[in-house]
């Protein structure tokens, strides 16, 4: 990513994904939203083609809207009971270690 303006835009998008994703009421969706955003952004980290980058940004912007809407819905219609695993675990999101 040569263009610094694009870089800030991408980082801002990524942060918004993490922020909205963490609002999911359901543990599994929350974990997935964060993991998928991280893996998705990472897999395009070394992308140099400006056309592909702008296509990726456009797609990410659309998906961000989905995450924002759905995390709100998920938090509204939450069952009110957390998963057993959330009650006692050491917080660890994804990673194959």
């Amino acid at each position: 990513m040569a263009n610094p303006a694009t870089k800030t835009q991408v980082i801002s998008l990524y942060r918004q994904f993490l922020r909205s994703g963490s609002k999911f009421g359901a543990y599994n969706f929350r974990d997935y939203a964060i993991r998928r955003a991280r893996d998705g952004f990472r897999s395009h980290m070394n992308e140099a083609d400006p056309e592909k980058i702008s296509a990726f940004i456009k797609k990410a912007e659309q998906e961000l809207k989905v995450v924002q809407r759905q995390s709100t819905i998920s938090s509204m219609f939450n069952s009110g009971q957390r998963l057993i695993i959330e009650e006692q675990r050491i917080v660890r999101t994804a990673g194959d270690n």
Partner: protein
Amino acid sequence: MLSRQLQRNILKVAAAPSVRLSLAKQAPRVVLFSLRTFSNTAQKQNASTVETLTPNSDSLGFETTAIEKPGRPIYLDMQATSPMDPRVLDAMLPYLTDLYGNPHSRTHQYGWETERAVEEAREQVAKLIGADPKEIIFTSGATEANNLSLKGVAHFYKGKKKHIITTQIEHKCVLESCRVLQEEGFDVTYLPVQPNGLIDIKQFEEAIRPDTSIVSIMSVNNEIGVIQPIEEIGKICRKNKVFFHTDAAQAVGKIPMDVNAMNIDLMSISGHKLYGPKGIGAIYVRRRPRVRLEAVQSGGGQERGIRSGTVPTPLVVGLGAACKIATEEMEYDDQRISRLSKRLIDGIQSKVEQVVRNGDDVHTYPGCVNLSFSYVEGESLLMALKEIALSSGSACTSASLEPSYVLRALGADDEMAHSSIRFGIGRFTTEAEIDYVINHVVGHVNKLRDMSPLWEMVQEGIDLKSIQWSQH
């Protein structure tokens, strides 16, 4: 209505003062009702799950302690159903709210919008399996699709062809459809499977007769996850000019399926097994060479007359979205599910001995792990593992204690069939959940084995098969 009741109560109060108490109780409830929000209903549900135990008068001095439920169990039953992807709900919501037209209404915009959405969904489903959109017909689910394929084809060609081939490990809806056809005078061959769960291709080829009309073999088994050699079966069917139907409810969206490469003539798809909504499925019916079906349901002639009834736009859009996501995410999901599956199997097998995975080692969908824990009764393990939502087999038969017919078809003895548990891993399963499951399963299996006299005997080197159990 409530206010009218209130008025009536007020009248009653005037008549009889003894009712005053009930009115006083009811009044604040009315206020509460109007203030209740979504989160309040959620809290109410939550409150009901907290166990409060009041000791009985006859509890003989035993102390009872109230146990608060520690939380919702981990969901590991993806073969029964999968959670709906939030992206699917996002695609559906406009059609559950603003865009409510009947897709078959041709005279106004409401109909046109929904028709466009239905056709787009049809394309998305078709793309996932390499079909033409015209070959996709929406049904209520895989059960209907299976019924329609088997009964539809059998009935249409009954003049000349009277023979159907299927396997012993099919889903109940295929087996039951075959049984019904048998009662109508059709001849059905139920192919046995090898101990690894796969059919014997040679045996299958020999079972084909000149009057065989349809072969129905599932792609991925719902209990043990074995993947049948669909491509080979398809080739043989095409060579013998026999229609090939596959129940791909557990396969579509999880493993690559291509109706042309695999020579599939009919295929059943289920929405809720691939993170879509429940109550929707689809059937693929090949156009060239054409497969003809006799409709089971009569009506307005929707879906080319094969499945009458108004197409449920929101559900169809949801199925389409689920298929689109599956097309894009299959590789990512597969890598992840394979990794989690390996982690689960290795984790359990490294800590507990005598755990066998049912089904073939290689040709198995990694998201379906069926393990047999020797000398542990599966149902008691399921009861012990209440922190994990699991099943010993298909959800349809989970109410009965009978051992699974699928495991028995593998030639497993009753003890092994009774000691099996199915772990279903999906898109939203996490590493932390798998680790939790490993720990709990290992702990409970060891505990149950410690209690078991059979396990003790095995540890002492007694062969249980050699024991002559006395009859009472």
